[in-house]
């Protein structure tokens, strides 16, 4: 048992439901108690979906516990088959099914006899995988199923498309800015002269999945969802894939070059260098931004980064490599992918934190006292408490992270958005600081409080007043250093003298 207040990644079934409901005309039936369909609420609220979320529950209640859920599950599947005529029904196990250990596979077989829809059981175990891993698996499972089916019916298309083409893999519902990223990537592919063969799973129909092998290669923009599918397609059809996230100027170029390499290996003669140069220098504003005085002012400023592997790694590189910002630590909650994360960011930050515990992250932020945070909604709230601005770069997210306006994180337009996000976060803190220097804010009564850095020291009135004059975002650090200085010297009361002495001694 563990005491938990907050989790970064959801339970496994959420991952499966995200994949299933990203497809068109696929219905998921959860094997779960009443009340576990909260996914529908989230999708309807966050994505502002106009359509009913294609998820229903085969309810596990007392009755089912006593008599088994076989009949009920089969009925629910065949009923949904009649009502909505979906192409595929995915039976989705939950934590409850994981311990009931009923033969769900068998129910699926029974139900598929009477259904026109295809029926499958999502192969995810609540206790072994989380939301992201389950999404990755379920996507692969569905692709495998339809490739095999096509093979069996002998209608797997042979050969490739005439022009170079790509499958974009891993765009999902409730994914962080996925909709916008997808539009941006399609545009990018267009400009590279590459046709988009299929985007999966978002908006795809399962009957088109057999066409996947027609693409020349696969693009997997996010680390969390799609790699298993790309690997499978590589093994089956020898399809190459690119798994470089095109986020930031340098990584976008690297991704494009990798694509160029693949196409050249396949006998195309493409050269994207001019395109990259042109985009970098004139289309994206990010490269110019990094040379501008605005960005120069950010040089050496401290930041911390936390999120899923994809966004935390990419953001760390953008901050350190493209903007000269000092990333004190970068971290991820994707513990299962720790090795990759370490490899990606180790040269761009002082320290790496891999944890699922938001308390550790809160403490680390309080200790570091960066000028800006880039994290999830949880870090945003830590920032609020500590008076440090935060740019949200990864899930878990809220309704405000589903903007209506066009806000990709990937591709060249993405670099502009990221530059804005970074610059706005830092200047927010800076403005605050200026306001305080010129006495624009009411003087705050309470001394700035670190989350885990509560003080037991007494300050006299004058020293306290002086502390209030220290700009907000360094005040905590000054306070702590002064207190440490006093404590080391067994000084009980901090006076003006002590304050200045500390400043001289430690440069606080």
């Amino acid at each position: 048992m563990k005491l938990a207040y907050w989790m970064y990644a959801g339970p496994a079934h959420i991952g499966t439901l995200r994949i299933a409901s990203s497809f068109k005309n696929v219905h998921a039936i959860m094997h779960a108690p009443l009340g576990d369909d909260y996914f529908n609420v989230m999708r309807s609220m966050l994505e502002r979906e106009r359509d009913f979320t294609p998820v229903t529950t085969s309810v596990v209640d007392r009755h089912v516990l006593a008599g088994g859920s076989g009949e009920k599950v089969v009925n629910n599947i065949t009923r949904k088959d009649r009502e909505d005529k979906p192409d595929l029904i995915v039976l989705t196990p939950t934590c409850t099914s994981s311990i009931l250990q009923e033969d769900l596979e068998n129910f699926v077989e029974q139900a598929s006899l009477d259904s026109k829809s295809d029926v499958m059981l999502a192969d995810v175990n609540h206790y072994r995988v989380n939301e992201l891993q389950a999404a990755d698996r379920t996507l692969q499972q569905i692709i495998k199923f339809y490739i095999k089916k096509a093979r069996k019916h002998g209608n797997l298309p042979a050969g490739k498309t005439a022009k170079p083409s790509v499958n974009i893999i891993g765009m999902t519902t409730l994914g962080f800015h996925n909709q916008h990223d997808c539009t941006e990537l399609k545009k990018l592919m267009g400009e590279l002269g590459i046709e988009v063969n299929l985007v999966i799973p978002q908006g795809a129909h399962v009957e088109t999945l057999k066409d996947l092998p027609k693409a020349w290669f696969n693009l997997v923009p996010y680390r969390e969802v799609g790699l298993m599918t790309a690997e499978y397609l590589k093994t089956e059809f020898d399809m190459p894939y690119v798994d470089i996230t095109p986020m930031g100027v340098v990584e976008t170029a690297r991704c494009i070059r990798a694509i160029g390499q693949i196409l050249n290996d396949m006998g195309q003669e493409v050269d994207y260098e001019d395109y990259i140069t042109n985009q970098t220098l004139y289309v994206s504003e990010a490269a110019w931004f990094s040379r501008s005085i605005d960005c120069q002012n950010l040089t050496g400023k401290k930041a911390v980064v936390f999120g899923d592997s994809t966004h935390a790694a990419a953001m760390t590189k953008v901050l350190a490599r493209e903007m000269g910002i000092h990333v004190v630590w970068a971290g991820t909650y994707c513990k299962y992918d720790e090795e990759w994360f370490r490899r990606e960011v180790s040269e761009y930050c002082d320290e790496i934190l891999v944890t699922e515990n938001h308390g550790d992250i809160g403490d680390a932020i309080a200790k570091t006292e960066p000028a800006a945070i880039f994290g999830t909604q949880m870090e945003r709230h830590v920032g609020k408490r500590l008076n440090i601005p935060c740019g949200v770069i990864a899930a878990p997210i809220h309704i405000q992270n589903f903007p209506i306006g066009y806000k990709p994180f990937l591709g060249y337009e993405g670099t502009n958005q990221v530059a804005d996000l970074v610059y706005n976060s830092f200047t927010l803190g800076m403005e605050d600081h200026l306001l305080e220097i010129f006495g624009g804010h009411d003087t705050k009564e309470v001394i700035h409080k670190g989350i885990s850095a509560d003080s037991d020291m007494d300050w006299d009135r004058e020293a306290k007043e002086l502390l209030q004059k220290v700009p907000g975002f360094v005040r905590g650090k000054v306070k702590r250093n002064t207190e440490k200085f006093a404590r080391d010297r067994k000084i009980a009361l901090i006076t003006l003298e002590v304050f200045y002495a500390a400043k001289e001694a430690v440069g606080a």
Partner: protein
Amino acid sequence: MATVTPEPQALSFECETGNYHTFCPISCVAWLYQKIEDSFFLVIGTKTCGYFLQNAMGVMIFAEPRYAMAELEEGDISAKLNDYEELKRLCLQIKRDRNPSVIVWIGTCTTEIIKMDLEGLSPRLEEEIGIPIVVARANGLDYAFTQGEDTVLAAMAARCPNEAPEEAEKKERNAIASLLNFGKKKEEVEAEESAYADHPPLVMFGSLPDPVVTNLSLELKKQGIKVSGWLPAKRYTELPVIKEGYYTCGVNPFLSRTATTLMRRRKTKLIGAPFPIGPDGTRAWIEKICSVMGVEPKGLAEREAQIWESLEDYLQLVRGKSVFLMGDNLLEVSLARFLVRCGMIVNEIGIPYMDKRYQAAELKFLEKTCHEMGAPVPTIVEKPDNYNQIERIKEIQPDLVITGMAHANPLEARGISTKWSVEFTFAQIHGFSNARDILELVTRPLRRNNSLNGLGWENLVREGAKHNI
């Protein structure tokens, strides 16, 4: 043409498949930890439960709530780990960090299925760590949404003291009372006491925000009725004394287990009344209490009329409009009854669970209201089937659907106005003065419709789209 006066219809009840959206009952943690200020709620469940609470509580989760998950891991399920030791470790940590006066364990589906004996473990642990542990099995296998509160209060009912505490202790217990009487002379306090009629002790049950508690207590005080306690109180340490023969009365329609516990285990007498929702409900509630207490109610008719008068602007918006309640929180019958009195036509009352005994007075009141208003008597659909309901909504095209968030946006996109049902559970809707708040909620989509009228974009789904209605 021969006119036949139709027989007034009676209520009809149906029961469907139980395939509907609602919140898991563990959500009661969100409002109960706020209500009971010295409590700590520990939900013993899985990531699924945690994910739900984290998302359903919204921004509250960032305010260091007095709640946590005891997240079960594979070792707990396979009984490799010792439940008692594990729970002890976590509860000691809670004691150290928060020092609550009570820890409430919320049992979940998983603890049910693996048959973790929470009721058996708690007394021993309680003894060992010196903090009361109350066990409530508020899981999704057995209950829906607000019924979670019912299971917690039923468990708390067993903890209410039998006897008024000894003098010294009493002083402390009555700290709040003496605070209220601060500065008053003893005679004044006594005079105040004598403002009450001589009636047997009466304890209310149901968790309401403090302003509403004060409001309802004052409303009864006007009739000379004294509320001697409220379950739950602001603090666990202030749970009311309940003795055999006391009278009890509920303020919410979903508290049937609590009512049963108070009757069977605490030997109290239950006053079965309609619920104080809407001015009609509030008046009927007070009247029923008065009649049981042998008090002649005064001024209630005028009071009710006055409230209705003040609602006229809102009533003009709802009169003659139809409303369909899909059903997810058990407030539906009371709400429907109020809305019929407001002049609305209720198409259907969906409800998760219908306790015809506990809600008897409310049901009768609904029937009577329909007859008096000349409105059709709606069908009450227990354990509704959302798919079928949407088919019916498609056919009836009601002016308003009261429903959960899962269906609200899709219905709006199809030109059907909706009101999010969960708001009724969190808004203040009890008593005379909150009637306006209920109508504020109910009319919001109608007022929105009036503001956006004539723009021509009511139906925003493509023709032929799946699930189109």
